[in-house]
């Protein structure tokens, strides 16, 4: 549905081309190739230690912040290789939001300042009034506004785990990222909070592309349009979610999704 000149949903926002990620001399991800399309949710599944988190961390150049970590291959964001010479990783990370497995609110900051944290390094820097508007919008989108609107000055750590995670999502949304990376965002949450986050993911894909790493195959089936299956560093298969869960091409995928290992 092309409206107002925006391209169709589904054009590749990120093209990952033969991506290999190293820790020292061992590779955690080998030769991953996939298109991550606009306004779709791409789920990354696989057993623990298969490299799915590392894969995700390569998409915003966070992988390389770990000592001895290194990346080979190309990641094209809107056609531009983020690993090309002269590309500033900080600029890349400003365009791509990320939420981690455990909630990571900044403990010294208030709820409001947490949401506004990313805005401080964005240009043009919004004024105080503009910031308030952006904070409210981000918290509303993260389905947290009603719960915190009367306590924006309180420390972020006063929130419950599920609220903290939605706060982190709001923090990532405040800077209007084009891509949102979610690294097992519901792994440390209770079922009700998990459901809220899942509904949120479903909402968000109207405006951006979302990549979600998850242990939970039902979750992948519920929220994603495309699923990629990783095993021991290899991307075994990536396909539309429905096809992946009904007619997997690779016997290893079938074995995993039917619960025979992992």
């Amino acid at each position: 549905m092309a409206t107002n000149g925006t391209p169709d949903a589904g054009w590749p926002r990120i093209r990952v081309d033969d991506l290999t990620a190293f820790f020292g001399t061992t590779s955690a991800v080998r030769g991953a190739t996939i298109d991550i399309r606009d306004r779709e949710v791409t789920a990354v599944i696989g057993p623990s230690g298969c490299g799915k988190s590392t894969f995700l961390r390569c998409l915003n150049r966070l992988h390389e912040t770990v000592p001895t970590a290194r990346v080979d291959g190309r990641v094209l964001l809107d056609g531009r290789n983020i690993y090309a010479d002269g590309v500033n990783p900080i600029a890349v990370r400003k365009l791509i939001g990320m939420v981690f497995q455990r909630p990571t609110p900044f403990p010294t900051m208030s709820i409001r300042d947490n949401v506004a944290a990313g805005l401080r390094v964005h240009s043009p820097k919004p004024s105080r009034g503009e910031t308030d508007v952006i904070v409210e919008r981000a918290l509303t989108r993260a389905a947290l506004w009603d719960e915190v609107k009367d306590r924006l000055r309180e420390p972020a750590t006063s929130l419950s785990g599920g609220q903290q995670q939605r706060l982190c999502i709001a923090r990532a949304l405040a800077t209007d990222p084009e891509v949102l990376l979610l690294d097992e965002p519901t792994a440390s949450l209770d079922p009700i909070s998990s459901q809220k986050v899942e509904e949120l993911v479903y909402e968000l894909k109207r405006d951006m592309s979302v990549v979600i790493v998850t242990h939970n195959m039902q979750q992948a089936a519920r929220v994603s349009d495309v699923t990629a299956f990783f095993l021991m560093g290899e991307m075994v298969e990536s396909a539309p979610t429905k096809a992946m869960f009904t007619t997997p091409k690779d016997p290893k995928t079938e074995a995993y999704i039917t619960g025979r290992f992992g």
Partner: protein
Amino acid sequence: MTSVSPPGRPTLRQLAVAERTVSTITRRRMVSAFMAMVIALTAIITTLPLLFILWHLAREGASSLSVDFFTQMPKPVGEGNAGMANAIVGTLILLGTACLIGLPIGIGAGLYLADFKRTRLATIVRFLADVLNGMPSIVLGIFAWEFLVKPLGHFSAWAGGVALAAMMIPMITRTTEEMVRLVPTSLREAALALGYSRARTALAVVLRTAMAGIVTGVLVAVARIAGETAPLLFTAFGNTFWSLDLTQPIAALPLQIFAYAISPYDEWHRLAWAGALVLISVVFIISILARFATRSSRSGGHGD
């Protein structure tokens, strides 16, 4: 009567074993109680010197403590209403100078050690900081004398401040490193993922999160150097007159206490007691502040 005991009833042999077990348990309980008493006693002995010092200082010093002590200058024996105003101010100036030099260097070095923990430089600095931490304080005085007193030809408050800073830096470096390392990597990564630079992440997120712990460490370090006498002997030197000039010798409470304590005059002895009471009160207050800082950091810490 049958010779067979009914089932479930203990045999004689079993009873004997049970009895032995009971006596073993009793013996163990007694040993345990005794040992608990012994270690409780050592715990009490640990605090005895402090209690003794406090009691003694309060008894000897309190009577000489008056408003004059804080507002008046040292005076010749027999003139009355003498005080240590210059030494109190001098100590504050020396502590201020030491903090001015020691805080940026100590905290900076601590950040480096925490952030680049496996580099060769970090390993060497960490080791040398520990060596410096155990260095006799008079040796640090000699260091400051060699570089600041000897070339300039006179004692100065600067030299005293540098000597105290040299004591303070390794303590602050190690505390900062420990506190910064307690900040979870996930928090650092969250900041990086928002597009924060490495420097901004270190200052705005990591250092701020670790700040309460660092403040505690700084207060402990200040409390420790506040009473140092040896590094000041041939750096700040002491001064019986009023001086705020950093390039000139300056009075300090520990030096004044030392000078008065070895004098032959009763009046000066009493002033020395009062000075010691003031000094320990300052250290005591700083320690309480340090505890307060730790407590508020804990309640403001992570919710999980």
